[in-house]
């Protein structure tokens, strides 16, 4: 998505060549000072010493990372063992985000494929229908999901009313509810890049496969899927990355037991924990993982572009 906007159109010119410095200055200044600068400062904070009741003491310390990865016993004097508490939270975030991504792929891929095979003038309308919910406030969507899934909520009422179940299914405050919430939050992110890839796909390849007696599902698996893989990878990343750091779905749908890394970070700054360096370190761990995934995908994309000519 982002890379497409960067690559030039046919009409690129250099009318504003000598003015581009000051044209770019405002964006450089605002983003440099208020996004890049703060992220660098967060890195610095993760190596400082915590002050009780929030804030930091300007003294270099590895305590935050040590606390994240190692357990040194109740009094902090035992030899370091691996600290499972935070690794478990981190792992749960990966697992929850992964499950949400898989669910989005299962629903999103057929949807994207279906839309891309509609008549050309009908496609924008379908895409528009898929994007509208994304623009509705994430908080409101999460609250709506919670309202729908409650024990006495409309979903359970409906299922009991139709006689499918006798007593309400408990969904809220389970891992599954969080997965559903994340899936619901980021599903449009899966559909859009896959749609873009399938739309570019040359269907004469499918015809050729059919001429050579490949079944339709074999064609889908062996011909279509490899051809649209960059779109699928992009979709998976666009769902996985925000899911990993999400705070609202685990907080509202998951309850206290289903903590994810977003909630852990939040608690260090807004909650009672009040350990800023530790919160900064946890944010750095999350950011590092996200950057690795983005670099990996950029490389995949570059490889695919090269292969595509």
């Amino acid at each position, binding site marked *: 998505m982002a890379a497409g906007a960067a690559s030039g159109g046919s009409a690129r010119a*250099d009318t504003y060549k000598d003015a581009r410095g000051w044209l770019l200055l405002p964006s450089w200044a605002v983003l440099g000072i208020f996004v890049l600068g703060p992220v660098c400062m967060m890195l610095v904070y993760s190596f400082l010493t915590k002050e009780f009741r929030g804030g930091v003491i300007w003294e270099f310390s590895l305590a935050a990372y040590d606390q994240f990865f190692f357990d040194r016993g109740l009094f902090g004097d035992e030899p370091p063992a691996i600290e499972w508490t935070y690794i478990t939270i981190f792992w749960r975030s990966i697992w929850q985000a992964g499950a949400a991504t898989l669910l989005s792929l299962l*629903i999103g891929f057929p949807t994207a494929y279906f839309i891309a095979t509609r008549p050309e003038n009908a496609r924008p309308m379908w895409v528009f229908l898929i994007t509208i919910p994304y*623009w509705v406030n994430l*908080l409101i969507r999460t609250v709506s999901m919670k*309202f729908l899934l409650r024990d006495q909520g409309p979903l359970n009422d409906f299922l009991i009313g139709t006689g499918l179940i006798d007593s309400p299914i408990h969904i809220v405050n389970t891992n599954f509810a969080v997965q559903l919430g994340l899936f619901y939050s980021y599903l449009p992110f899966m*559909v859009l890049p896959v749609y873009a890839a399938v739309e570019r796909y040359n269907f004469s390849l499918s015809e050729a496969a059919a001429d050579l007696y490949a079944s339709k599902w074999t064609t889908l698996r062996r011909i279509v899927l490899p051809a649209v893989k960059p779109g699928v990878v992009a979709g998976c990343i666009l769902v996985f990355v925000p899911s990993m750091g999400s705070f609202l779905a685990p907080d509202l749908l998951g309850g206290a037991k289903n903590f994810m890394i977003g909630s852990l970070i939040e608690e260090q700054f807004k909650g009672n924990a009040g350990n800023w360096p530790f919160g900064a370190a946890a944010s750095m761990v999350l*950011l590092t993982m996200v950057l690795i995934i983005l670099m990996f995908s950029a490389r995949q994309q570059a490889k695919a572009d090269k292969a595509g000519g």
Partner: protein
Amino acid sequence: MAHVNNDIKTYTGFRAITLLCLVVLYAPLVIVTIYSFNASQSITNWEGISLRWYADVFTGPESGKFKTAAFNSFTIAIIAATASTAIATLAATAMVRGGTFKLRTVSFGLISLPLMVPEIVTAVATLIFFNAIGFTRGYMTILVAHIAFCIPFAYLPISARMQGIEDSFEQAAMDLYATRRQAFTRILMPLMAPGIISGFLLAFIVSLDDFIITNFVKGAGVETLPTAIFGSVKQGIKPNIMAISTMLLSVSVVMVTISYFVSKSDNTK
């Protein structure tokens, strides 16, 4: 030929999954909208249609809080969208019409930074930043943070639009002795209008909807609609929250629809 082709393309079940997808996307929103008109005191029982919870939002015991929050939300969204659209328009002009230059990739990376860094990380970093420079958190900190993270949302439709405009119009104007500034304001800007409007609307919605970053950089006592809603929801979903959610939801849907038809009307021109 076309028929055979179509047959190879279609897969049984994909239509059903697409419909399921739409049901999943819309059901929670539709249900909350329906229940916001519930006459009942509790959110569980349906007791007929009524506007009482909408009235409650404007006149009830919490109405003062909601009005202030709505004022903050809308003024911040208007200022942040205006500022980020202006900044994004200038940046897009440099990126699309500025030829190739060394820092182009770096610039693009910087502009898309808010999209790549997880929102909670941006939120924490901004909080740390304002704290380190000793800036009192409040309305201004929210505004500044919103201007920054709205830039890529305004930038993407604006630069996409500009790439679609041949620069021959500007060249022609300049051949006829228009200055570059005149070519920019009289030729490029009017042609850019649909991109700029849609960039502004998207930035506006993104600002209006933001919860996570606002939650971190807001000062005590300063609320926007999402943080006010979150505060209420933590004590349980109440009917007045569903009414206010429905109103906010409608604003977003109307904005996105306008944005869609603005860009669409332009394609047919």
